[in-house]
């Protein structure tokens, strides 16, 4: 007999757990499907602190933040399947799951996608040169170090200044490695300022902006690499190529929402976020399928993931129990320096407020964030600085949203 749940949450990381909890609070029968042997997702390998300041009001490490939610999930009647991978999701919300107990199908009143993201690889950015051992994504090195207790190498270069890369620079330094250099293609960092200061500057690790790798050297293990500054089109200036000896290259060059499960389903996707297009309830264009956390768009703070997942989980429960109907929506557009705004659609309605999250496409100083509805300004805020690495939030009054919304920088 096929089991039925009101809400099936795919993924048991921070997004999945928060979604499951809020769906449960609404009275839904909830299942979490998690591929790992435990709940918590990537938080379990993020042993540094800085989590929860906004959402919990305490500064926690990743495993501690995860543990707060794990304990809550365990205290409720929420079913959890571990070592379980969803192989297929159908448009009528049948969830096909592979686990060591068998291949099972579960029917879901609503589905919450919370599968997180994966790291962009050396292959994806076509790093030239040899393809030796010693070239890893920062997250893989982090997992090997923090979860398994192995250090991938001792003389390290990091490409990209994403937060995981910066965190790993400090982590590996404290474990006895030497981090020679961080290279960042862009003229600014994609990581948080705090990480630049506390993970690099504190340990005298140099970061070179507007630089990239021109060639990896060594086989079978990496022995060094050439790097060069880039011109305004981000092409390397080979005349200024330099060499650095290293046995390890870590990549921290971006995260990609892992939406492979949606291939073949008629879900509208955003080419900018690589996640689904959602409304303010985080429902995708496929009825009854919701999305939250890094599978929807990549977040820099887990606190925002938890908040977003609460919305998705509660809405999914409402939908499953017939309390949420889809109707006409208003579109939210991002223009003039705003890379994307989320949700991309807002259902028509008068009550309450709606938070719109957005990211900018470059570093902007002294700009004004302006929201217009049908060409009329309904929100405006001056800013000192806006950077692509920091997600921004604006709160709109729903009564103001009478037509299409545009978010721009002026």
């Amino acid at each position, binding site marked *: 007999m096929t089991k039925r749940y009101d809400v099936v949450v795919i993924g048991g990381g921070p997004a999945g757990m928060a979604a499951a909890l809020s769906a449960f609070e609404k009275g839904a029968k909830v299942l979490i499907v998690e591929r790992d042997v435990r709940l918590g997702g990537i938080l379990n390998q993020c*042993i540094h602190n800085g989590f929860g300041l906004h959402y919990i009001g305490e500064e926690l*490490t990743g495993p501690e933040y995860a543990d707060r939610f794990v304990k809550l999930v365990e205290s409720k009647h929420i079913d959890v399947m571990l070592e379980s991978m969803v192989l297929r999701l159908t448009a009528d919300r049948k969830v096909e799951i592979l686990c060591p107990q068998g291949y099972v199908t579960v029917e879901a009143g609503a589905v919450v996608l919370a599968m997180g993201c994966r790291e962009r690889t050396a292959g994806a950015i076509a790093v030239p040169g040899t393809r030796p051992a010693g070239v890893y994504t920062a997250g893989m090195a982090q997992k090997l170090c923090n979860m398994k207790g192995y250090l991938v190498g001792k003389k390290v270069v990091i490409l990209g200044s994403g937060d995981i890369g910066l965190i790993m620079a400090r982590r590996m330094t404290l474990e006895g490695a030497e981090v020679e250099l961080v290279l960042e293609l862009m003229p600014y960092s994609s990581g948080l300022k705090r990480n630049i200061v506390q993970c690099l500057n504190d340990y005298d690790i140099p970061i070179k902006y507007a630089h990239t790798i021109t060639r990896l050297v060594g086989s079978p293990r990496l022995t060094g690499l050439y790097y060069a500054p880039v011109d305004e089109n981000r092409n390397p200036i080979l005349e200024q190529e330099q060499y650095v000896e290293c046995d390890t290259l870590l990549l921290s060059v971006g995260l990609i929402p892992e939406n492979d499960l949606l291939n073949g389903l008629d879900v509208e996707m955003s080419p900018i976020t690589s996640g689904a297009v959602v409304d303010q309830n985080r429902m995708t264009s496929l009825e009854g399928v919701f999305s939250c956390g890094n599978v929807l768009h990549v977040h820099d703070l887990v606190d925002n993931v938890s908040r977003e997942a609460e919305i998705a989980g509660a809405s999914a429960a409402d939908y499953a129990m017939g309390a949420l109907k889809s109707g006409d929506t208003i579109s939210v557009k991002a223009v003039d320096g705003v890379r994307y705004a989320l949700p991309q659609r807002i259902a028509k309605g008068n009550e309450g407020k709606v938070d719109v999250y957005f990211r900018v496409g470059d570093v902007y100083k002294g700009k004004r964030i302006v929201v217009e509805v049908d060409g009329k300004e309904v929100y405006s805020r001056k800013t000192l600085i806006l950077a692509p690495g920091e997600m921004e939030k604006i709160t709109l009054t729903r009564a103001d949203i009478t037509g299409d919304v545009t978010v721009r920088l002026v």
Partner: protein
Amino acid sequence: MNMICIMCPMGCPLTVEENNGVITVQGHTCPRGKKYGEQEFTAPVRVLTTLVKRADGGMASAKTSGPIPKDKVREAAECVGKIVVSADVKIGDIIEENFYADGVNLVITGVAQ
């Protein structure tokens, strides 16, 4: 002393100096930046997060429950490297009290499986 303020994404370059016991901060854009500059100049502190070995060969993660002097972080990390904790440690267990700062403990934050 030159530093970058981390209070917001601005990353203001600060110059902090002391003259006759008076600390002056330059380069900040806001009061938070001034305060950060003064703190970093007089007594910079950091929270250490790291790994400890378990007796069964596995790993547990640990942190200092509060900030410790910045210039002691490396030494503290090396000290943690010599500690072996029991195989059944749990989140919240205190491994050492008054660890590199009064009232600051070395605490287990997670157990790898």
